[in-house]
């Protein structure tokens, strides 16, 4: 039920993000979702891609430090209160969110929320019990 996310360490210098996208483009890898967290001197790029094994390999060969993390993709109706419902469920069950980002599916009906939890398995259980659909990795990679 988990989704593989790759994360890349970036210095805050011109052209570093462009270098990542160039390597992925040349390898024919499509980016499904991304988020960039930054501080004054470095950033962490988090990506969900069509082929994470290959993405990790080309980025490593390109000299980047790459990490892999399990995240959870939850589906929510694309309407007011959708995200709030999920966060409410998590909060009542005392599940802590490390970070999250979201994207809207092409069909336009549903949004996908990507969550990084400390206790991933417990989080999945809580979400499923409360009727939230968890999107399997395979489905995300091939959207």
């Amino acid at each position, binding site marked *: 039920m988990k989704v593989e*996310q790759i*994360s890349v*360490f*970036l*210095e805050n210098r011109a052209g*570093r993000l462009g270098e990542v996208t160039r390597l992925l483009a040349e390898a024919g890898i499509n980016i499904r979702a991304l988020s960039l*967290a*930054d*501080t004054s*001197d*470095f950033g*962490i790029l*988090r990506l969900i891609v069509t082929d994470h094994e290959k993405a990790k390999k080309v980025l490593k060969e390109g*000299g*980047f*430090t*790459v*990490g892999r*993390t399990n995240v959870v993709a939850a589906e929510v109706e694309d309407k007011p209160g959708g995200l709030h419902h999920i966060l409410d469920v998590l909060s009542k069950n005392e599940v802590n969110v*490390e*970070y999250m980002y979201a994207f809207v599916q092409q069909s336009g009906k549903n949004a996908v929320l990507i969550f*990084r939890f400390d206790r991933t398995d417990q989080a999945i259980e809580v979400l499923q019990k409360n009727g939230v659909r968890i999107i399997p990795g395979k489905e995300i990679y091939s959207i």
Partner: protein
Amino acid sequence: MMYEVENETMPREELETLQLKRLQYLVEKLYHNVPFYREKFNERGLKPEHVKSLKDLQYLPFTAKQDLRNNYPYGLFASPKENIVRIHASSGTTGKATVVGYTQRDVDTWARLMARCLMAAGGSRQDMVHNAYGYGLFTGGLGMHYGAEKLGATIMPFSGGGTRRQVMLMKDFGSTILCSTPSYAIKLYETILASGMTPEDLKLRIGIFGAEPWSEGMRQEIQSKLGLKAYDIYGLSEIMGPGVAIECKEAQNGLHIWEDHFIPEIIDPETCEVLPMGATGELVITTITKEGIPLIRYRTRDITALNPVPCKCGRTHIRMERIKGRSDDMLIIRGVNVFPSQIESILLDTHGLTSHYQLIIRRQGSMDTLEAQVEVDEKLFSDKIKHLQKIEAKIQKDIKEFLGITAKVSLVEPQSIERSQGKAKRVIDLR
């Protein structure tokens, strides 16, 4: 003016006779009291009685900083612990500091030599000595302190930090002699201006600067900015602390080494051969009157040359040139000694990091800054920002704790640190 005219102007022949007598006594004492030296002598088949002239010094073994570390903390002390009245230590990671001990006589000698230094620079009992050298295990603060008291001047133990307050009190208290690192002197000048004052509002007339390398150009700059005469002072904790050598007011050209207490030699740092008089090489010092931790042929790693030309001030003690550099990789940053290996050991021992790192030293305005760049490898990396920020903060805290210096820690991408022949360049000194 001289604090000890007879000693400071002792005819060379008499001075050398005194040196030999003291050296022979020292060798005898170390051979019987310090196992480290006895072993070194035995390895070479040397006996104390083999030292028959000052020339025989070149056959004696060297002492290195590592020898002090290997015998940490008190292994090289030559006096019983109950006779030691003071301990000083240089920066170092846990268990690796170099520790020195002083008997009451050592502390008194140090004060007298510092008093000589103050007077050689033109100081007297009338002076108000503003001491901005750090107080603590570092020898700078207390070394200057007792010398000024011995001279009978008024010492004001400011230590480092609180620059605006120092400037205010410098005016109110009427400081006439400033003792600090040369870079701090420039910082004080900038703070004087920023406080709406000018150096004319102050009574400063003499500056005694040391604990970090500085150039003739920097001397001219400090002299014209602060309106005082600036003198270079030299010392190191292993030998005594500040006050081993100083420039005199009359010549302001080369530092007189107090030869009735120290024998200087210049060696080739590679071959360890003694170089002819006047040649540039590594300064080696033998302490001939110390009791706590006397050292034979201590390798200072400082590069200089000796000048035997008699000085117009009348002192017969030899002069050394201003320090030109180091024969090892030690960095002096804001008066603090930093070895790249110490940073490495913080990364490795404290954080388990085998990452590449690089130290960048810059001069920003008047102050030197240290940046430690650490490459982020997979072991260190995390997808969480707070995790990486925690690592940065922890490394910075450890550097501050172990080395006493604030460094900016930056995480950088792998391979951003330049490597030559597979080996990373550890230090970039942009000063």
